């Protein structure tokens, strides 16, 4: 009976995997937004593998709620039009109210890849410091 219960538990885990808890997850890579974009600009697209959990720090370019998603855009560099797009988890809305463009922020999220910009999903605020 115990074996059956354990088997069912394991099968449940295989067929119904839990989503990653980003808040608790340890980042696999630490980067700043400008470094990431400069690699992309140098055609070094394989610099960062998709699905890696990344801690990324940068200057806020814009905060918006387009498509009812809280999104932070981090500047990619002084003369760069490319940026880092971080789609925030819904539980981060309250914490985001303290931030405004030009503030520095550190986020943690799952890297998805590059289009014109670097894209991160499931982002949470991991540490922040406000510019004076």
């Amino acid at each position, binding site marked *: 009976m115990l074996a059956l219960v354990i088997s069912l538990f394991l099968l449940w885990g295989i*067929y*119904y*995997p*839990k*989503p990653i808890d980003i808040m608790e997850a340890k980042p696999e890579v630490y980067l700043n937004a400008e470094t990431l974009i400069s690699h992309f600009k140098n055609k070094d697209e394989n610099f960062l593998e*998709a*699905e890696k959990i990344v801690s990324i720090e940068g200057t806020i370019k814009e905060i*918006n709620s*387009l*498509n009812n*998603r809280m*999104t932070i*855009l981090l500047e990619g560099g002084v003369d760069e*039009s490319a*940026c880092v*797009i971080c*789609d925030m988890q819904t539980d981060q809305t309250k914490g985001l109210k303290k931030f405004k463009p030009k503030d520095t922020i550190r986020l943690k999220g799952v890297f*998805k*890849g590059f*289009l*014109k*910009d670097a*894209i991160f*999903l499931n982002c949470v605020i991991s540490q922040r410091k406000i510019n004076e």
Partner: protein
Amino acid sequence: MNKLIPIFFLFLLSGQQQQEKIIARQGRVAFFSYTSVENIKAENNQVLSIIDLSNDEIAVSMLMNAFVFEKALMREHFNESYVESDIYPKATFEGKIIDFDPAQDGEQTRMVKGTFSMHGVSKELEIKTKIEKVQGKYILSGTFEAFVKDYDIKVPPLLAGNIAKTISVDFRFEYQPYES
């Protein structure tokens, strides 16, 4: 599809007439599969699109692994078994807005004709699209249907009842001036 990616980036990076280009970095594409067994929906809110207003050309690019599902298992099946996003990470569309008048304020409905590439398969599509121009800002939106079999997506017989043969796709792009 890999051959299309450099063409797309050339389109993005061309230095001429940039003032006439508009960009949507956070376009939304959602798809729906309705069956008696299960309804599946997913959305991607980081779809890139650029329109060149000088020649009405439009390009769209999206990361397949950036679709968000209700359940982690659906996401896993989608990426690993159906669209194989590690092999085919992007889907692209390149086309032209037919009879588009960028100067016209308000709403106009136009056909967008072009090539949609996904999972290594390219298909010609013609999509009815609503174009709104409000205070100088363009918004494109619409719905079309895609046939799963057209894109060489193999659904295991055991799950055939869970996936609709025709997938409904919604899209909405809000554009801003493109400053490179």
